[in-house]
């Protein structure tokens, strides 16, 4: 940065100093390219999910039929007593646990413990697969047993099914893509592809995974609880 100092006789204070720091030489953020890209992609993806959720809230207001009672629809019976939202609660628990194993994997990556990183990423992927399988179970139950379709359902507003399949489907695709991504990175870690380059890639994959989890929390709150 010495070349720069020649032109900047005095370090600036206040707003100008802030701008100078942010627009400094060569790179704005001291992070690898991949990480910067992942962050920006996630902001973009946030806009997608925000639009989905806004659209959902909007059609829920405009629809002329009553909104179906979610807690009853998403209830499972154990020993004859229906427990509302039990499946979703377990799914949420699974997904949030996967964020924990992912964070541990990132830690192990930076410690260059390849085997632990590999297994923790596999555990994360396994949690992801569990989540998607439970979602598949939920979908098949709704479609086959309850007769919910994207274009209509026996409980009330047809938008209920449309929104449900669209948003959880889009999120499920994200989780599935994440599982594949995690497994690819995990195997490359094990093979030693990143021994020289460093293990930032684990954290980058982790960013995506945590994002997918965070989105689920919003979907859970807005769609299942509201």
């Amino acid at each position, binding site marked *: 940065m010495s070349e720069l100092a020649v032109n900047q006789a005095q370090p600036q204070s206040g707003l100008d100093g802030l701008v100078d720091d942010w627009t*400094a030489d060569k790179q704005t953020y001291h992070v690898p390219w991949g990480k910067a890209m992942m962050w920006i992609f996630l902001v973009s993806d946030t806009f997608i999910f925000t639009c989905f959720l806004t*659209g959902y809230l909007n059609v829920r207001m405009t629809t002329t039929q009553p909104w179906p009672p979610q807690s009853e629809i998403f209830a499972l019976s154990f020993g004859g007593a229906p427990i509302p939202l039990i499946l979703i609660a377990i799914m949420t628990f699974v997904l949030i646990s996967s964020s924990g194993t992912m964070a541990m994997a990132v830690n192990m990556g930076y410690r260059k413990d390849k085997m632990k990183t590999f297994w923790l990423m596999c555990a994360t992927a396994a949690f992801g697969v569990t989540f998607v399988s439970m979602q598949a179970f939920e979908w098949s139950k709704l479609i086959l047993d309850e007769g919910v379709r994207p274009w209509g359902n026996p409980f009330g*507003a047809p938008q209920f099914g449309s929104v449900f399949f669209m948003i959880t489907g889009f999120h499920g695709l994200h989780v599935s893509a994440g599982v594949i991504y995690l497994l690819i990175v995990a195997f490359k870690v094990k093979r030693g592809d990143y021994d020289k380059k460093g293990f930032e890639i684990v954290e980058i994959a982790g960013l995506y995974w945590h994002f997918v989890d965070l989105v689920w929390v919003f979907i859970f709150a807005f769609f299942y609880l509201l």
Partner: protein
Amino acid sequence: MAYVPLADQEQELHHPHSWVTKYVWSQDHKVIAVQYGGTAIAVGVVALVLSLLMRLQLGFPETFDLIDPSSYYQSVTMHGMIMVVYLLTALFLGGFGNYLIPLMCGARDMVFPFLNMLSYWVYLLSVLILMASFFVGEGPTGAGWTLYPPQTNMAGTPGHDSGIVLMLLSLAVFIVAFTMGGLNYVVTVLQNRCRGLTMMRLPLSVWGIFVATCLGLFAFPALLVSAIMMLFDTLLGTSFFMPAVIESGTPLDHNGGSPILFQHLFWFFGHPEVYIVALPAFGLVSDVLSTHARKNIFGYRMMVWAIIAIGGLSFIVWAHHMYVSGMHPYFGFFFATTTLIIAVPTALKVYNWVLTLWEGDIRLNAPMYFAIGFIFTFIHGGLTGLFLGNVVIDLPLSDTYFVVAHFHMVMGVSPVLVLFAALYHWYPKITGRMFHEGMAKVHFWCTFLGTYAIYLPMHYLGFLGVPRRYYALGSTDFIPQSAHDLNTTITIAALFVGASQLLFFINIFWSLRNGKKADPNPWGSASLEWQTPDTPPVHGNWGPELPTVYRWAYDYSVPGAHQDFIPQNTPESVEPTVDEQHFDPDHDVSKADL
């Protein structure tokens, strides 16, 4: 281990070995730029021909039977969508963004060359899907480029069977392509600049493209979501956007959806989209003006902040496209206010362009013609925007030819003039040949005067209340004979302008082979892309060592310098420094020192 920025590490460049990897499956940003540009211009010609077909119908109703009412609407739709998304967005960001960002940032390539290559091929796929809609079912959709439901899905709309599906699919694919390219552009600008190149030393072209790409990354999601929802409505029979509708006496199988939701989502994308097209144009034209006026750009810092402010504000003005949708007056008040506020930074830019020309040593080269022409058309289109931004004036003018004239001046003609300015300006660097100067100037006058002949009368037609998107006006009391005659005149002008674009194509293709060999820096430009060791730049751009930047991109006519420009990579030991890092907008340093 000390942290080494990636840009300093040895980069693995994939050096192409065969013709195919060099020109087809290329990961070189310059080849990708040309691929993007060529595809965009080719599909733009399709849209131009469609507009001429519409003009023939409007100017000479019942004379030609080239198009019927259905194909008229299909032409309107495809013309609009192609021009806005597949030509302008793709050419500014995919074309110029790809070509200029690495060169102006002193980088060897984009940060993710493979993703960049993928971006082009996915873009090409989206174009092919769109073009396929001409050949299936009833042809492309005729719902207008805004694709408003419920009309899009009704049997009376041409292409409601397969055209609309292909259109939405193509848009979704385009957004995927744009995201792959856009992430590249943003990260390259942020993280891959050469030594000494702070962001406040970047040419305004890069700033314009950078902020426009950010807008794209945050605005296209809304379009993607609305495309997905509408696909569901069309294919699965859901009712996101479809209310209860009765079509020819039969109720459709939809209810409870919100057409207004679509309008909000669409314009939440659609208004930033205007600036996705305009901001790169602002940036490119600033560089062309400054170079050919041999003067630093007036108020560089202000220009940067104006670009950022416009970018930010563009997200909170979208509903001014929807005044007639029946919104709450306070809502309209809010959006009218933000719309007028956005005029402030925009006007600031215009003043700065004019002040850049003021007392400059203006070289009237062909790119400069187009750049100055842009200032005229942009002021013109911008002023009519003030009319339409106000709710009470917009209501009577909505859906008339006044609107058509406004948006064609401000985001049709203006960006296209900048595109021509930029294409001519960077042509010597891209191809290594000079274009034919005389032919380019004739091209300018035909285009500039011709477009005025087209769009100026349209304002008048709009005031008369002539509605847009009508296949034929017929005989109506409020439309006098003079308006019909004017329509004929406009058509003749449009045909003239359309034909004169041949000059451009003849020029660039003829010059490829027969043009004079270009100097490395024919315009005497200070910015980095003209300082490459080879012209056109080879793979890797910079030879063995990356350049180092010591100053901003606008050191023109610096007192005491050896030439009337100082390239960005000239050290202070060789030339004096008038770096405007902390340029005081009230005090034009370069002039005061003269």
